[in-house]
């Protein structure tokens, strides 16, 4: 059963140096507050997993939390590049960063396999592309029924997955809706899980298209109002596109980034 705890306690208990950590959220419901708490707690040598590493991973990489990134699209959506990620890859600043790169379909299926208790997933993908030459977790498998050769990708089972949701009830059952991305699979694939929520409510009123993660399948729930900002929480607040554009200038410049980092470290969760 999920326990409802303050965010600093949840991160302290669930995220350890050297862990493989997935903070998921496909543009929507990105767990920024949890990422910032990981920065404040100075976690190191993390393998960060995420289909779309955007600002939160740029920030964590720039803060020196990560030694490896597993991903399928790394950019500031609609704006440009992740300059902290580029700096880590090109110059090892502040620490060297290794990458393991996939396609979206590959990553999504890796989580599906992980959530399903399978060692790998099968898909039509990667054929003819240059990625399999560089990514060890891509291979091929022959269909035992048709003989067809298909792509195989290794399951992803993070040590801990963190997602953000609109709300939870007092038993720690979590409800999220809008673009639900790969969050369900990422949580169910993980050994431990933390969900930050906008609010804890007495009762989860049904919402069309919502998914519910039962409290018994999660380790901890932490309240983090506006915890997905500057991304958005459907029904609560909008995406702050201006903040995404403004990040570009901060991210390009180490000094500007370090000023941003100090502001985050001084901020109480």
């Amino acid at each position, binding site marked *: 059963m999920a326990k409802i705890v303050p965010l600093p306690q949840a991160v302290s208990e669930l995220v350890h140096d050297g862990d493989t950590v997935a903070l998921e959220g*496909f*543009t*929507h419901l990105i767990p920024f507050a949890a990422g910032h708490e990981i920065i404040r707690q100075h976690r190191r040598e993390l393998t960060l997993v995420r*289909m*779309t590493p955007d600002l939160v991973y740029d920030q964590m990489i720039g803060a020196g939390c990560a030694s490896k990134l597993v*991903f*399928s*699209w*790394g*950019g500031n*959506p*609609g*704006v440009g*590049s992740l300059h902290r*990620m*580029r700096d880590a*890859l*090109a110059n090892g600043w502040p620490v060297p960063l290794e990458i393991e*790169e*996939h*396609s*979206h*379909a590959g990553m*999504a*299926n890796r*989580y*599906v396999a992980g959530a399903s208790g399978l060692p790998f997933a099968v*898909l*039509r*993908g*990667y*054929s*003819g*592309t*240059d*990625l399999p030459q*560089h990514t060890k977790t891509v291979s091929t498998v022959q269909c035992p029924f048709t003989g*067809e*050769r*298909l792509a195989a990708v290794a399951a992803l089972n993070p040590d801990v997955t963190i997602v953000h949701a609109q709300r939870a009830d007092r038993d720690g059952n979590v409800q999220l809706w*809008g*673009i*639900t*991305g*790969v969050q*369900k*699979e990422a949580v169910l694939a993980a050994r431990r899980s933390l969900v930050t929520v906008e609010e804890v409510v007495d009762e989860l009123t049904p919402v069309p*298209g919502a*998914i519910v993660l039962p409290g018994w399948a999660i380790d901890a729930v932490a309240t983090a109002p506006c915890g997905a900002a500057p991304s*958005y929480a*459907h029904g609560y607040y*909008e*995406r702050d*596109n*201006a903040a*995404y554009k403004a990040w570009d200038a901060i991210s390009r410049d180490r000094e500007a980034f370090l000023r941003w980092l100090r502001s985050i470290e001084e901020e109480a969760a």
Partner: protein
Amino acid sequence: MTGTAEPVAGTQEAQDWSSDEMMTIAAARALRDGQVCFVGIGLPSRAANLARRLHAPRLVLIYESGTVDTRPAELPLSIGDGVLADSALTVVSVPEIFNYWLQPGRIDVGFLSGAQIDRLGNINTTVIGEYDDPTVRLPGSGGAPEIASSCRQVIVVMRHRLRSFVEHVDFVTSVGHGTGPGDRERLGLRGAGPVRVITDLGVLEPDPETAELVLTALHPGVTVERVRAETGWPLQVAADLVFTAPPSTTELETLRSLRTVGEKEAS
């Protein structure tokens, strides 16, 4: 032949448009009403939403964030903006959008862009230079490799620059026509691959015999020499080269009325 040459709405010729506007309008003209289109963010998204407002009101737009048949009033900045979910017929998970909707070949058109494209229509969005020591690190694959392999056909929208239109891409992120005719079949890729590359200078299409991209349409005011100067291989010109009609006033006014979420009215 190209389907991008004639205006789709309005007959009055517009004045004072940019080459980017011509590209977006030509790309919008390439989409047909009722088609199901898997849309990449940026240039493809703008063109697809323009088509929906002009001649293709029943164009079904699908984004990799899981939004199916979405009709945003404003253009999204990212692939998963709230406007896409709010206006969608349904929103599905990311594994579902790739496994159930894209992979089996249900999508008519994959609408993509890229940093580099080569003479056989292969696309690079991964790195410029060597993978392990690139001169430019690009965002990576995203949904593009499987969009390029599984959609019935692919339309590419890109600005035509020498650094982008290259003999061989530095990295094959998404397969176009691979190493040449028959390669897609050998690789088990079930869609037809790129059928048209729409740029700010003209339109390229694969030669039926060689699969090499050849110039099939020129936008107004552009010369063959200029396109060749911006193309990194000896560009062939189709015998039946056509000339794209300039934007109509309706097309141009509709394009200029499109706003991105959070963007202020143009002053």
